[in-house]
């Protein structure tokens, strides 16, 4: 039962992600990415990490994607740029980049596929509950990983301040 759910959610994630990059309409890309994040949250629940799943929805699907949506709406593009209308020099640079990227991704895919194995889902409720309990996540975040936590918050603050400064300067 877990395995079936896993395959369904994984298929949704992969197909939605493919849809993101292959869709002509930017709005559809954004919505498909949200679907992909939703399925990913489902995968987190299967891994007995409900807190991570819910945080994924709140932060990624709920806040960051709204940001993406705003950007797409304000740019008001209904479909992606037409390659025939681009200058030839730009097309050449783009195609070189695409070839390099495809080669790298193919290598990575080959390495990942060579390591496929079936994971068994643990059924030991005690072990599961202790790892994924919110209290333990909070404790770990504020003791073992306190430095990373503080640095991340400073990073987000810097980017927010930067965005405000840039927006004001164009006024």
């Amino acid at each position: 039962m877990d395995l079936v759910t896993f395959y369904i959610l994984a298929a949704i994630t992969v197909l939605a992600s493919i849809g993101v990059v292959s869709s002509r309409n930017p709005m559809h890309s954004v919505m498909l990415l949200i679907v992909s994040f939703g399925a990913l949250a489902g995968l987190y629940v299967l891994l007995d990490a409900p807190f991570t799943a819910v945080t994924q929805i709140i932060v990624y699907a709920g806040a960051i994607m709204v940001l993406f949506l705003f950007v797409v709406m304000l740019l008001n593009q209904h479909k992606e740029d037409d390659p025939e209308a681009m200058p030839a020099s730009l097309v050449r640079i783009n195609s070189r980049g695409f070839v390099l990227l495809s080669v790298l991704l193919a290598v990575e895919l080959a390495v990942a596929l060579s390591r496929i194995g079936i994971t068994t889902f643990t059924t030991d409720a005690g072990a599961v509950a202790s790892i994924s309990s919110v209290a333990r996540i909070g404790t770990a975040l504020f003791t073992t990983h306190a430095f990373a936590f503080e640095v991340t918050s400073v990073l987000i603050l810097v980017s927010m301040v930067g965005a405000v400064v840039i927006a004001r300067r164009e006024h």
Partner: protein
Amino acid sequence: MSQLTLADFGISQSLIAHLVLIFVVFQALVLTSAFMVWMERKVCAYIQDREGPNRVGPAGLLQPFADVIKLVFKEDLRPKAADTFLFMIAPIISTATAFAAFSVVPFGGETTLFGLLDQPLRLEVTDVNVAVLVIFAVASMGIYGIVLAGWSSNSKYSLLGGLRSAAQMISYELSYGLALAAVIMLAGSLSLREIVTNQAGTWWGFIPKWYVFLQPLGFFIYMTAGVAETNRAPFDFPEAEQELVAGYHTEYSSMSFALFFMAEYINMVTVSAVATSLYLGGWLGPFASGTIGWVWFMAKVLLILFFYVWMRWTLPRYRYDQLMEFGWKWLLPAAVLNLIATAALVIWLG
């Protein structure tokens, strides 16, 4: 030949009980939304010194059903330049998230339906140990319904209404979350059922141990943020009739419009239900909380809904920049201060 029972197919009695419960909750939400239509018009009328609907049914109680029948018979318009798929899916997202948020709210203790059931049935659709966060997450997803409605209608008024509404909702989500965090600190758990059971008992025999008495500022912040989240007056500028025609649902008609309406009312019900669970002791009452707890729950939720309607028809509307300034410059610092004070008191008093 022995009789085949349902249990042989893996369908246990508790599964059937759960399915019936889900159906009952769903219908109760829809009926509450219809009741809200009636209550809104009646309360608005009495505040304005008139009577309101009084022709359809006794005291106009069948008015919402008449409204729905009228809406169903209307033509389902669609602007030609609209993005069809997104246009259709926007009200669905709004309504689905509104219903989904209620699925983790417990509205009563356990019941055995007068001994019909073998095992006691908990009065909630599901018990998740991160229930408060689930409600928060589903509320964030509800923003997409509004944003997509505004965008896909391909009309100036809708787009502006949608963008403003979304910006308002994400701004007030912060204060909403911080008010929630303060209650979580007091209760020590994210599960709504545990938060309610922590509020059992009384001080000095008559003051119930509800969190509203420990967190008055937090309650105020939560209710204000909740009203802003549901786009209700005085924070309903994005839908203001006088300003933006009708905001993000300008181009919608018939059932799609009814879905947006229903989604808004059900969001109100969810905010009220969560406020009841967090601050007003949920289904706990002065007596018989174990058996008729859901009656206490409904009474408290209806009280908060009445306040919602009362506020709408009494207070003038905030202008959009005043609204955003209030959310960021006043409510958010207040929520942070509330959180810090609660943390200090929890640590100090153990």
